[in-house]
């Protein structure tokens, strides 16, 4: 089962657009990492930037193959979506883990009249906010969701073939 049987061109253009967005944001993050420039939406980290650029390249590669008439171009959309999903899950898990640290650092302070000794070990998380994990790899996934949905649908259909 192909990801894009009908409306191939539309999905191909979508793949290109997602690829360009990933490459643009990843490129900005890569440059920010080198020059030490930080914005809340694109913090500097050259390695994370490089990761996003490669994901963008995978998405865009599919469009180039589609233009060349390769019928299997949608594999690139699937893998691009899969990689984008993995990076999204990674930041989500990091957010949940640090959220637990924040909860252990703050909740006992509300519950107990005196701060328990063990609670002091989690002081590093007192100032933590979810924004710290709000990395481009997390929010960029929103543009890759349709691709991930199509991939998942195709995979499920494939599995059900006797």
């Amino acid at each position: 089962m192909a990801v894009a049987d009908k409306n191939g061109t539309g999905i191909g253009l979508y793949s290109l657009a997602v690829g360009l967005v990933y490459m643009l944001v990843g490129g900005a993050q890569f440059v920010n990492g080198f020059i030490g420039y930080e914005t809340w939406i694109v913090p500097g980290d050259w390695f994370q930037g490089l990761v996003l650029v490669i994901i963008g390249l995978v998405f865009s590669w599919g469009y180039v193959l589609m233009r060349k008439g390769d019928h299997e171009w949608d594999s690139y959309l699937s893998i691009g979506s899969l990689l984008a999903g993995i990076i999204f899950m990674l930041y989500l898990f990091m957010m949940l883990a640090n959220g637990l640290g924040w909860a252990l650092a703050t909740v006992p302070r509300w519950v107990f009249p005196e701060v328990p000794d063990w609670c002091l070990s989690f002081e590093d998380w007192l100032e933590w906010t979810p924004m710290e994990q709000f990395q481009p790899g997390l929010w960029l996934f929103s543009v890759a969701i349709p691709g991930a949905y199509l991939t998942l649908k195709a995979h499920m259909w494939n599995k059900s073939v006797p």
Partner: protein
Amino acid sequence: MKRVKAVLGDDPEIAFAERRYKMIGGILEECLTKTETGMTFSDKLDKVLLNKYLGIPIFLILVWALFQFSIEASGVFMVIIETALVTVGAFFGTLLEGNEMATSLVQDGIFGGFAFILPFLAPIFLMFLGIAWLEDSGYFARAAFVMDKLLRKLGVHGKTFIPMMLGFGCNIPAIMACRSIEGEKDRMISILSNPYISCGARLPVYVLFAAAFFPGFEGSVIFSMYMLGLAVAIFTAWLLRKTLFKGEPEPFIMELPIYRVPTLRESVLHMWERGVVFLKKAGTWLFLGAIILWFMSAFGPAGYLGIDPDVSVSYTGILGGLIQPIFAPLGFDWRLGAALIFAFLAKEIAVESLGIIFAVEGDIAIGGALAGVFSPATAAAFMIFILLYIPCVAAVGTIKSETNSWKWTLFSVVYSIIIAYVIAAIAFALLSAIGLGVIGGA
């Protein structure tokens, strides 16, 4: 063999494999009716994951994600384990109140040592979980296939990469896995290059130093260490092929499993199988190491040095002082020198010994103490030395049993020390040149 090669017109193994699959294909053609033609989902994934240009970058993304996952998400779990151990240690300490030496042994030696090591169960288990996902999904076999193209150019057998991937968990089963490589020369190259792959035991050292000296970049720093280990392993394999084991690598034939979604139960089971090795080690080697370390740090030529002793006059201090001049060009003092000696038992003991030498409790405290004494350049050189010098005593024993030669075992030990020293010295010089040679310079 040469005649068979001439008749078949190809390497016999490749020719046999080709004919075998042609025959299987023929039989399937006759007895199966296909309801759908075209590529399967697995084939489609392979088209991208085995792509000539994208295959290696995708592999690097997945490995990077694995380390980010295990390092960045494990911090809170490490603190939970550490807090529990310190609390239990303090409780047992109060039970022995009145006997200073016994309190010191239980509280500082045993529980103090465990409080440095056991928190690292969190990143180790998370890393093994990630490795299990990659393995169970069928991707690991593809990684070997992708890397084969690069390795073959360097004259290295593609199958060498499979033990290398296993080495991320533990070098001992990885060295043993080299038995599956047919050619004697290829097998020896695989065994002798495997110890440079960074095993789980080195992870606690990286986590400690990366958090203390490179905050905010821990994941990327640790990923770089793993990649450096991989690069040195490949370089060593290339060097051995060009010098001591000349010749062409045997052909690489491998059946790729189909992709599948790993189940949580299987992945957790695989994680546990690998992680429990670390737990067993904690109960045996690390326990023994903690007692030896406590003894050598609490006693000196003058006898028992008391609670909070001056470790520089203990046996540990004397031992570290003896080798300190050798490591001075890397920025190491007697404390790091002593940690390196003890780490020969098991690499994680480096963390335990630094905790006892600095006389602090817990990984956050030891990180702070280290950052106040050493520069980021020294920290990087130490991580590199830990990565590359002699693998643990058990791995050396495995090299001996697998090569069946003291000569090659000794070669492996000496070569690893030389390469660790040279690369650590280069890294120290380069990082010092860009301003990271001063304390607090990151």
